[in-house]
C-alpha cells in the first residue's frame, strides 16, 4: 500500500532528480494553462483566416435527391461551399476500415452526418450559409433497434453486423448447482470533453497542407486525411494543437478532412470550431449495450459456467467497434475464473449516431452486467459478495476465458481486500447538511425518506492494442550543449504524458531541465494512439530507450575523449562524474561540441488474433481495480447522491502520485456520471439532449470524495517502467459499484445504467390514489435491502 503525497514536491536526495520518476513533478503546461495562455486548438488564428462550418443531416435515414448550394453561394462573405464531389481522393474514411463518407452524397445514415462544408469570413456568415443550403431528402424510417437490425435489410453495403466475437471454452453443457440469470442494459454515454473539436488548416506553398488539430493519434489522422485528399503523406503535415480532453472521442476523425479541403480550395487558412451541440453530433459515443447473462456455480461458490449474449449498438459506421466488441467478449466474465464459457458479442449497424472509443471501452458495459451477476449469485448462495469474488478471483497463472494465461501481475484479491477494508464514511443522511442530500439545493422531499446503500464492484481490462496489431511508439532524445530535448508524436490530452516524458529523461540523464519538441507527423514516426491506457508504457518505453541510448553514447564518448574508465562514470545533476570523484565536468563540457541524438522505437510483446473458438493470446497486459460506492437515495423522488467512492487499483508502479490520483478521481467521476445521470437520449436516432443543459455531467456538488485505499505496486514484467496504464480502470467498475449501492438502498433490481429517477421513484411508488395524493407517511417503505 502506498501513501500518496498530494501536496506538491517531495524533497529527495541521491542520484534521482527532484522531479524524476515517483515524484510529484509538475506538468510543464500547468503554468500557461493556469494563466489562460495555453493555446488550445480553438485558440489558433492565422493571417487572412476564414471560418468553416459543416452542414449536417437532421434526419437519421434518408435518400438525398438533390443539394442546392446556390443560396449559400449568394451570401456575401462566403468563399467556398464543398460537397462529396469535391473530395479528390477516397470518399470515405475510418479508423479500422473506411466505411464513413467524408460527405454523404446519396444516403444519410445518421442524424448529424455531414453533407457540405462552407468557408466564410465570419463564423456567423458561415453558419447562415450552411443553413441556406437546400437539401431535398427522401426521409426514411430509421433502423434504430440494435436487435431488429440483425434481421433487417442492410443499411450499408457492408451489412448490418459490424463485428462478432464468439468465445467457446470448456464444456458448453456444464452447469453448477446454483444458477442466476439476468438481462442488463447500459445507455449511450458521451465523452463530454470540455474543449470542443477544432482545428486550423493552412495551405502550404508546395500544394500540401499543415493541419493544427486536437486529436489522439496524429499519424493515423495523417493516413486517413492523405487518402481522402489524394496527397502523398509528406504533403499532409498534422501538428498537435492543445487538446481540451479526449476520453476516446478524438480517436476518429471529426472535421479534419473537410477542413483541409476548404483550405486547399480557398488557398487561405481555415478554422473550424464546433459548438457544443455540434460536438455531440460530431464524435462517437460509448456503445449502448444489451446483455443477457447466465452464471452457474457450485454450492461452495466456485463458478462453473458463464453464458452471455451481448449486443452493442455501433450506430451508422464501424469506427472502433471491432476493438470494443473484442474487449466486451474477452472481459465478459470479469476477473474471475470459470472453466466453461460461451460468449457471443456482436456490434451492429443502426441509424443511430456512430459509437466507438470511450474510456474503458467494451469493459465498462460488461462490468455492469457481470458485477450485478456476482451480487445475485452471492445472494442465491447466501455467501458474502466480497467473499464470493475472492473465491473466484484471478491470480497470476490463471487463464482467461480466451485461454490466455495471466503471465503478468494480477493482484485481484489484493484490490478486493484493500477496497473492502476502507472505513465507511462517518456521516449519515440524518446529519448531513441539506445541500449534501439527494437533490441538493433543489431538494423538496423528506430527510426521513433518504436511504443509504453500499455497493461493490471489480473490473479489469487490457492495456495497449491487442489481437496482433503492430503496436509501437517512437521517441527521440537529443543532447546538445548540455540541453536535453525529447520529441515524440504522442498526444497529450490532459493526462500528463508530457510530465512523464520529462521525468524519465531527468532520471536517465541526470538533468533538471528537459525541453519537449513539437508533437507532429513531421520528422518523427508514430507514437500510436493516446488510448487504451497505453502511452505511459509505450511512449514511456520509447523515451526511456532513446534516453538510455544517448546516455551510453555520451559516456562512451567521454570515456574515450578524456581517457577515463567508462565503468565508473555517472550522470548526476547535469554533470558527468566518476564514482571516485576524480572526474567532474558539466554535460556541456563533457559533450565537447558533439550532439548526441537517438531515436528509439518501442514495441510491446506480440499478441495474436483469437482462433475460431475465441481462444488465443490476444492481449499484452491487464489492469484491475475495485470500487466501493456509498449512496444516499431519496425514495420518493428517485434522486441519488453518491456519498463516497473508495477504490484500490493495480498500478504496477507509481510514476507520479498526484497525476495518478488525478486519473483515479477523474475516471471515477465519469463512472459516477454514467451510473446516475449521463445518457444521450435518442428519439428515432435523433439526439434529444445535445447540450450541457440536458446532457448532464457531475458538478463539484455531485462528485463525492474519493478514498484511495490502496495502490497495489507490483512491477509488471515487460513494462519498461514497471507501471501499468491507470487511466481506464477507474471508469470500469465505478459505475457498477454505484448502481449496486442504489440496489442495496432500494431493494430494486435496477438492471439498467444510468439509473434514472423514474427507475426508482415509479418502481417504489404505490398505485396513484384517487383524489388528493397521499402523504409520504402513507406510502410503503422500500423493500428491505440485502446487505
Amino acid at each position, binding site marked *: 500500500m502506498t501513501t500518496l503525497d498530494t*501536496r506538491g514536491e517531495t524533497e529527495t536526495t541521491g542520484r534521482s532528480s527532484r522531479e524524476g520518476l515517483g515524484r510529484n513533478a509538475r506538468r510543464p503546461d500547468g503554468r500557461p494553462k493556469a494563466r489562460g495562455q495555453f493555446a488550445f486548438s480553438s485558440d489558433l488564428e492565422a493571417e487572412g483566416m476564414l471560418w468553416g462550418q459543416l452542414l449536417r443531416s437532421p434526419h437519421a435515414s434518408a435518400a438525398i435527391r438533390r443539394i442546392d448550394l446556390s443560396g449559400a453561394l449568394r451570401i456575401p462573405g462566403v468563399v467556398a461551399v464543398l460537397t462529396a464531389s469535391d473530395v479528390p481522393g477516397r470518399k470515405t474514411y475510418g479508423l479500422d476500415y473506411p466505411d464513413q463518407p467524408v460527405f454523404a452524397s446519396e444516403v444519410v445514415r445518421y442524424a448529424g452526418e455531414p453533407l457540405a462544408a462552407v468557408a466564410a469570413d465570419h463564423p456567423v456568415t458561415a453558419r447562415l450559409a450552411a443553413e441556406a443550403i437546400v437539401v431535398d431528402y427522401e426521409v426514411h424510417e430509421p433502423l434504430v433497434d440494435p436487435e431488429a437490425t440483425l434481421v433487417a435489410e442492410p443499411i450499408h453495403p457492408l451489412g448490418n453486423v459490424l463485428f462478432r466475437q464468439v468465445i467457446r471454452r470448456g464444456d458448453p453443457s456444464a452447469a453448477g448447482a446454483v444458477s442466476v440469470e439476468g438481462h442488463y442494459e447500459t445507455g449511450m454515454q458521451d465523452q463530454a470533453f470540455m474543449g470542443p473539436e477544432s482545428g486550423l488548416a493552412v495551405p502550404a506553398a508546395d500544394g500540401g497542407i499543415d493541419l493544427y488539430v486536437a486529436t489522439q493519434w496524429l499519424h493515423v489522422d495523417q493516413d486517413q486525411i492523405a487518402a481522402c485528399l489524394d496527397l502523398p503523406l509528406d504533403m499532409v503535415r498534422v501538428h498537435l494543437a492543445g487538446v481540451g480532453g479526449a476520453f476516446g472521442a478524438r480517436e476518429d476523425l471529426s472535421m479534419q478532412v473537410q477542413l483541409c479541403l476548404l483550405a486547399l480550395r480557398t488557398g487561405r487558412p481555415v478554422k473550424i470550431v464546433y459548438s457544443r451541440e455540434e460536438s455531440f453530433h460530431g464524435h462517437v459515443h460509448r456503445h449502448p449495450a444489451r446483455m443477457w447473462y447466465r452464471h452457474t456455480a457450485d454450492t461452495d461458490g466456485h463458478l462453473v459456467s458463464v453464458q452471455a449474449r451481448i449486443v452493442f449498438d455501433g450506430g451508422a459506421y464501424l469506427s472502433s467497434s471491432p476493438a470494443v466488441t473484442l474487449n466486451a467478449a474477452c472481459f465478459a466474465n470479469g476477473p474471475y475464473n470459470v472453466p466453461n464459457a460461451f460468449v457471443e458479442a456482436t456490434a451492429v449497424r443502426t441509424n443511430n449516431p456512430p459509437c466507438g472509443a470511450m474510456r474503458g471501452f467494451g469493459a465498462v458495459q460488461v462490468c455492469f452486467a457481470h458485477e450485478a451477476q456476482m451480487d445475485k449469485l452471492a445472494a442465491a448462495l447466501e455467501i458474502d459478495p466480497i467473499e464470493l469474488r475472492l473465491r473466484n478471483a484471478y491470480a497470476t497463472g490463471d487463464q482467461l476465458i480466451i485461454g490466455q494465461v495471466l503471465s503478468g501481475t494480477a493482484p485481484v484479491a489484493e484490490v478486493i481486500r484493500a477496497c473492502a477494508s476502507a472505513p465507511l464514511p462517518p456521516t449519515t443522511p440524518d446529519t448531513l447538511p441539506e445541500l449534501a442530500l439527494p437533490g441538493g439545493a433543489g431538494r423538496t422531499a423528506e430527510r426521513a425518506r433518504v436511504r443509504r446503500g453500499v455497493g461493490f464492484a471489480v473490473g479489469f481490462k487490457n492495456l495497449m492494442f491487442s489481437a496482433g496489431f503492430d503496436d509501437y511508439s517512437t521517441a527521440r532524445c537529443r543532447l546538445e550543449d548540455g540541453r536535453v530535448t525529447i520529441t515524440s508524436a504522442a498526444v497529450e490530452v490532459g493526462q500528463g504524458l508530457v510530465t512523464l516524458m520529462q521525468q524519465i529523461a531527468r532520471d536517465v540523464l541526470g538533468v533538471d531541465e528537459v525541453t519537449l519538441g513539437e508533437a507532429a507527423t513531421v520528422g518523427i514516426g508514430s507514437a500510436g494512439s493516446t488510448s487504451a491506457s497505453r502511452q505511459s508504457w509505450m511512449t514511456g518505453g520509447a523515451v526511456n530507450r532513446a534516453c538510455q541510448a544517448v546516455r551510453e553514447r555520451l559516456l562512451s564518448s567521454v570515456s574515450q575523449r578524456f581517457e577515463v574508465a567508462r565503468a565508473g562514470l555517472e550522470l548526476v545533476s547535469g554533470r558527468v562524474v566518476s564514482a571516485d570523484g576524480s572526474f567532474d565536468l558539466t554535460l556541456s563540457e563533457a559533450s565537447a561540441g558533439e550532439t548526441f541524438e537517438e531515436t528509439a522505437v518501442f514495441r510491446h510483446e506480440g499478441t495474436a488474433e483469437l482462433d475460431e473458438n475465441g481462444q488465443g493470446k490476444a492481449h499484452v497486459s491487464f489492469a484491475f481495480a475495485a470500487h466501493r460506492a456509498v449512496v444516499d437515495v431519496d425514495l420518493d423522488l428517485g434522486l441519488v447522491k453518491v456519498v463516497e467512492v473508495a477504490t484500490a487499483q493495480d498500478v504496477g508502479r507509481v510514476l507520479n502520485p498526484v497525476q495518478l490520483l488525478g486519473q483515479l478521481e477523474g475516471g471515477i467521476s465519469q463512472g459516477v456520471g454514467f451510473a446516475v445521470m449521463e445518457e444521450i437520449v435518442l428519439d428515432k436516432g435523433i439526439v434529444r439532449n445535445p447540450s450541457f443543459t440536458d446532457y448532464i455531467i457531475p458538478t463539484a456538488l455531485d462528485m463525492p470524495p474519493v478514498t484511495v485505499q490502496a495502490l497495489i505496486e507490483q512491477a509488471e514484467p515487460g513494462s519498461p517502467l514497471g507501471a501499468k496504464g491507470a487511466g481506464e480502470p477507474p471508469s470500469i467498475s465505478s459505475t457498477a459499484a454505484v448502481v449496486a449501492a442504489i440496489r442495496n438502498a432500494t431493494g430494486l433490481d435496477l438492471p439498467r445504467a444510468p439509473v434514472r429517477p423514474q427507475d426508482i421513484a415509479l418502481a417504489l411508488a404505490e398505485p396513484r390514489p384517487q383524489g388528493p395524493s397521499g402523504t409520504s407517511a402513507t406510502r410503503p417503505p422500500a423493500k428491505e435491502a440485502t446487505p
Partner: protein
Amino acid sequence: MEQLSTDGALLSYSLRVNGREQAVHDALLGENLLYVLRERLGLRGSKNACEQGECGACSVIIDGRLECACTVLAAGAVGREIVTVEGLTPEGDGLSDLQEAFVAAGAVQCGFCTPGLIVSLHDLLTRSPDPSELEVREAISGNLCRCTGYGRILEAVKAAQEKGRP
C-alpha cells in the same frame, strides 16, 4: 451615444477590460462578449466549451458580478468594468497564489476549464476568504471539469486559503 457608433449592420464601440479601454471595430450586433474577447481583442483565456452559460469556462467578472461571457451581449457591456482571467494573472510568466496552488496540487489536467475556475474561485475568495468545502463545491458547481473529478481542485483551494488570499 459616444461609446457606440454604427455603420449599417456593423458597430464600433469600446469595452473596459482589465482596467483598459479596448476598441472594437465593425462588429456584428449579435456578437457575445466571449466572441469579442477572444476573436476581436485576442483575450483567449476565456474558453468556449458550451457557449450557453452551462459550463463556466468563460467566467468573467462584470461590475463585480460573476458572469458567463457567452451569455452577455458584447455591445451591452459598454461602460461596464470587465475582468477576465488575464486581469487576474501577474505580468511576465508569474502565477497568482490560486494559480500556483492549482499547478502544485494537480488541479490542472487538460486545462480547458482552468481559467474559468480561477475566475470563479477568485470571486468566491474575494467575497468569502474562508469558505467551507461545501461552500467551495457550491461556488464552482457552475464550472464543469471533465478531467479531474474536482478532488485536486478542492485541494488547491485549501492550499490557497492557507496562503490567505486569492
